[in-house]
């Protein structure tokens, strides 16, 4: 997709988001105390907000030339993976335990994006075996060899 065919609205929303963060950072830098601790953040946030406003203005005027944005089809494709990733990182890893959560997330992601047919028993067996091998390697590496303590809630 060419850069020019992207709806301008996407660039405006993206640059507006960056600008809002910039304004918020600048506001905090100039209002929080003690002021000595915010000397450097003030300097940085001033440049940050100027550049962010410049980028936003360019997006509004349609001068943005780089970045292909996120098309609807791309977003729909990534959505299930992103959802599994968010649940895995922000909830499951701590509440189910690292190894259980990783096994589930790995299996789900591999199954979701595996081009092999979903109605074939053989491909499901392959997915289960690959997941089991991956978790065995991770357990051997992190728990047995490196002795990294991870949250363990369910099974192991």
């Amino acid at each position, binding site marked *: 997709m060419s850069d020019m065919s992207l709806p301008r609205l996407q660039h405006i929303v993206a640059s507006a988001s960056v600008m809002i963060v910039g304004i918020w950072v600048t506001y905090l830098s100039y209002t929080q105390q003690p002021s000595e601790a915010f*000397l450097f953040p003030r300097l940085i946030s001033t*440049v940050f907000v100027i550049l962010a406003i410049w980028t936003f203005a360019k997006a509004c005027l349609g001068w943005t030339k780089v970045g292909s944005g996120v098309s609807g089809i791309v977003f729909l*494709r990534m959505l299930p993976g992103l959802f599994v*990733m968010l649940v895995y990182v922000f909830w499951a890893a701590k509440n189910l335990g690292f190894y259980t959560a990783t096994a589930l997330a790995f299996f789900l992601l591999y199954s979701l*994006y595996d081009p092999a047919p979903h109605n074939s028993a053989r491909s499901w067996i392959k997915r289960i075996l690959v997941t089991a091998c991956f978790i065995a390697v991770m357990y051997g590496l992190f728990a047995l060899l490196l002795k990294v303590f*991870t949250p363990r809630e369910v099974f192991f």
Partner: protein
Amino acid sequence: LQLSFLSSAVGGIFGVLLLIFLTPLLAEWALAFGPSHLFWLAILGVTVIGTLDSRSVVKGLLSGCIGLWLATIGFDDIMGAQRFIFHDALGGGINIIAALIGLFAIPQVISMFAQGRHRDGAEVLQVRKHSIIAAMRELLRFPRALVIGMSTGSIIGLIPGVGGQIAGLVAYDQTKKFSPDRAAFGKGHPEGVISAEAANNAMVGPSLVPLLTLSIPGSPTAAVLLGGLLIHGIFPGSDLFDNHPDVAWTFINSMLVGQVLMCLFGLYIAGVAARVAQVPQSLMAALVLGLAVFGSYSVQSSMGDVYVMAALGIMMYFLERFGFSAAPLVLGLILGPIAESNFIQGSMIANATDGMMAYFLTGPLNLFLIAVVIASITYSVWMELRSRRYVSKEEVMV
């Protein structure tokens, strides 16, 4: 292929030897640098990568600013004040390793998701085997190409922000100019292969000179190396060779050994290793995500690092889709503490002497560094405008 690996090794060894001889000399010169100079050097590092490594100068600089801001999150070193801590996970600031994993690995994982149930893996070309002795003879037949490649690569390597691709292209172009057989270039002529490969490896050693002497990484790779050194409490700079000679020389010598190993690896294992590219993307995405979560957690056994890693990764994916770049953001994050500590030290000195403006904006070295910052931005803006004009002309012709 053999010729490519051999020229790379010769170029790489030459570059590392230059690093060995140049670094101690420049380190002595760097002793003259005060807090204001080190502050400007840190800013220079961010602007050079921000402007040269991005497709948009403004977005590159904005990425650098975001990185510098992220580096200020946590407790202030001098006053102990809380800054921008809006979640418990940010209490200790942003861990560099977790941030690096998030900024580089997670956008790739999401990109793989975005391709959906994609069947095609990367195609691995079958390269016919040639004799290594014959490749060595061929290398010796074209000493001019080798010398041009090594010298061009070394000079370009010293310029922060200019990567191996540019070194290879410049060396190729120069070799072509001096070659009597110019018409054969572009069809796998050995001179072209030798010069380009020697140059892109010869630049690696010299590109680390600014990192080791002035703590200014000249490339994203050097920024990651700087992150590694800082994690171990080693601050590269003028006193690196006095305070940590063991680390400095191990680092340099390992690069020398690395060049030889890279050549051997390339000659004997590259064909097999290339098959990694054939691993299905669905499997690769799940593998990388699992390793990213375990890797970021194991740094400090903290779930906060895992949250930061994922949040930064998702943010970076969307920023990249809108023309922002990860390299300047990473550099800002790494150079932020260096810039801030020197800025604070400098402002203390300035308050006791002639004031901020006089301390930071006068003096030959300050002015030189400011001029380089401005020149790098101006040059990048000019290049961007030029490339746009070129694209517009092509569009008109079509």
